[in-house]
């Protein structure tokens, strides 16, 4: 490899976001969070701490829940990203979004996109989680408003609804 210039150049990065192929011009170490929000205008994903503690920036990367504030966009090259904007289909909400509304799972709403992504991910891995599974699945998403109780109810209700179907 040649000796590298001092500043890095931006480069084209191809990735799929919410089912659509996207190309962004970004520095490779730029946080996926910033690329989603600033380059792609997908502001549903939030920054709460910038250190991978609060989970507000959670997205799915190739089906895995990750904190997008800790992912350099170069490592998302070729990956499939799902953000909160991709969770609803047109005007049909995901059952979890319905139950979050019914059970009071969202208060101020800032943790909600990440929390819903975490819940979506949990139900994909464990379609019938018990309370301990739910607590564990969401332990990386901090909520300061709800005390979590109604979030657990929302997840449990979405599970019952799916099972009933």
């Amino acid at each position, binding site marked *: 490899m040649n000796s590298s210039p001092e500043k890095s150049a931006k480069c084209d990065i191809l990735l799929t976001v919410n089912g659509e192929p996207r190309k962004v011009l970004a520095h490779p170490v730029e946080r996926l969070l910033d690329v989603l929000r600033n380059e792609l205008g997908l*502001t*549903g994903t939030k920054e709460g701490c910038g250190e991978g503690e609060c989970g507000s920036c959670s997205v799915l990367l190739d089906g895995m829940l990750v904190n997008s504030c800790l992912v350099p966009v170069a490592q998302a090259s070729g990956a499939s990203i799902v953000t909160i904007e991709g969770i609803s289909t047109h005007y049909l909400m995901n059952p979890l979004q319905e139950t979050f509304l019914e059970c*009071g799972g969202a208060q101020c709403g800032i943790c909600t996109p990440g929390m819903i992504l975490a819940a979506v991910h949990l139900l994909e891995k464990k379609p019938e989680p018990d309370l301990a599974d739910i607590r564990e699945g969401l332990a990386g998403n901090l909520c300061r*408003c709800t005390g979590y109780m109604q979030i657990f109810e929302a997840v449990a209700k979405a599970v019952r609804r799916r099972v009933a179907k």
Partner: protein
Amino acid sequence: MQEGHIVGASVPRKEGRDKVTGAARYVDDMVLPGMLHGATVRSSVARGKFQKISFDPNVNWNEFVVVTAKDIPGKNCIALILDDQPCLAAGIVNHAEEPVLLLAHADRHKLRKAVDAVSIEYEPLPSVHSIEESERQSTIIWGNDNTFKSYLVEKGNVDDVWREAAHIVEGEYFTGAQEQLYIENNGVIAAFKPDSGITVWGSLQCPYYVHKALMALCGLPEDKVRVVQMETGGAFGGKEEYPSMIAGHAALLAIKSGKPVKIIYDRMEDMVATTKRHPSRTRHRTAVSKEGTILGGEIEFTIDGGAYATLSSVVLSRGTIHAGGPYFWPSVRIRTKAVATNTPPHGAFRGFGAPQSLFALERHMDRIAQVVGVSPIEIRRRNFLKTGQTTTTEQTIRENIDLHHLLDRALELSDYAAKKNRFAVDNKNGKRKKGIGIAAFLHGAGFTGSGERYLNSLVGVEAGADGIVRVLVSSAEFGQGTNTVLCQIAAEALGLPYQGVAIAQPDTTVVPNSGPTVASRTAMIVGKLVQSAARGIQQTLTKAALLNDAYTPEQFRAACGEYVALHGALKSYARYEAPGDVYWDDERYRGDAYAAFAWAVYVAEVTVDLTAYSVTVDDFVALQEIGKVLNPVLAEGQITGGVAQGIGFALYEKVLWQNGRMMNSQMTNYIMPTSADLPPIRVFFEELGNVHGAHGAKGIGELPMDGPAPAIVNAVEDATGVRFCSIPLLPEDLFEALRNEPVEQDVPSPLGDSA
């Protein structure tokens, strides 16, 4: 239309769909063309003088907008109460992280580097870092005596009670600073045009506080300042007064540059630089009869206000008034003060002084029980306020509150008696001790005394030609349910479906000043005004002979259409009127402090693990009387969220200070509970109504903050026998206390002694 059809139902959150789909717009989601980013250069010392500000010559400063105190067009202060806090320091700083200089640039990254390229030379001054140091007054850092405010409440004849007392019980209690830790950091965008003035969009609780502050700072008249509240990601008081500061900064940069400026704090900056809950020290000295009734007492309550007065006088006020709790004090002397230290000013945080003084009181009640030789339950029974008795400020309790019943019910719901017995047996063995503790308390809703009269809130309701009703208030939604509850009230008042009522985004050019969104006043006081204003719409239509007394939504819509076509805008306003029977003496701090109290008994069950010295809350019962439950799901959410913050206050959240600066300013080392840490929080309500509140509602937003900490620490003492008087109670603190007072083990370890 029957009562409780909409009010009293768990209708969905008005802005909920946007929140669960990621469509809700918070300030950082907004971008304006030509927008610059702004940042703040802050003090690195706790107290010092400065003259020289150096700018690293390697930076091209011409690219940057630079603002110092000299650039302030109006008054260099954040207008609030005493107006002693500068917007930008001029020659002297009084706390670490105090704002000195502002920068703006289109490139966020260059901006960040530029902040680091500014250096300020300080001549350090002696600084004060604790209540004790401040009281000693050997270094004066504020006013003549480091005291922002003091109160004296006197009832009865305190000096006479000591000689009759069978017991005199003393105690000293401490609470630490607590960070609000809203998940959305403080942020604002400001834009300025010479003809229209300044506009600010922000994450905030009180648009009109910011409005007032910007008028003074920018030297602009009322109609040249516009404040708009964006979706706000949590506040809890942390965005009550602080936004005036960050908005002021963005405004100054916008004025100087002629461009919109966005300032968004990252977590570290938000934690070190913005307000926290006031640390407190309370001293109790109580005269008690042989049977355990309080004859009288002295309460000394002191809070640390930080470097500037800001809201400390009001926090002190609430802490003072709540210091006696839900008990009858025949005589009492309550001496309180807020003192200055060289710390970023402490500020509003849910509860606002009451969690501090109630922590002390409820711990002290358990102490009194021990001295008298009765249970914590019995001591409270013997002292509970009854209807017709007066509080410490001589407010007569007029409603039929039955605290005995509330206590009975809480004990039953928590299975208190059976657990207490079981724990006493189980605790004889093993490394895990169980305990159960209670707290009984009250919380006054609305501004104290004549505060609501001073606020003089105004509320509007508007009906469009399409029949859609819009509530016009400056009351902000930040998760607690303002939008939903006020729309429910308006819908119910007009007999319309919930979907037929909307609420305007708080924008000072659109909505009247319904007062700040604080003090648990929104549902109760603003809600009542919304009800009146909504009825006013109906009255207007009826008077115009466009609507009968009974009507369908379709008829309403048609009437609106006609009215607007004939007369133009259909708006109705309602202004606050002080209830005729509420009297408050601001001089002697006596009388009817609050229009309504909510009452509660909380029960905490804990396990103390003697291997790790950690406390886990296993079960929590929160029972409260709140007048009327306007929306069950939202009300329950307020309680569980508040209890969770109370658990954090008691066991997890510690601010580590070094030279007046917060050291643990990241979420990795400022610890709030995760989903894996909280017990089932079981919430129950009772409803006694309230003549002063909409549909009989009382305020509930802050109530749940008062009970958890003392209930938990009472439970920890029950489990270990160790008297903890200071929170947060961390495992390290428990460990140190147990080193000195080991917990008794009745039975030898199962291994036996033989080798």
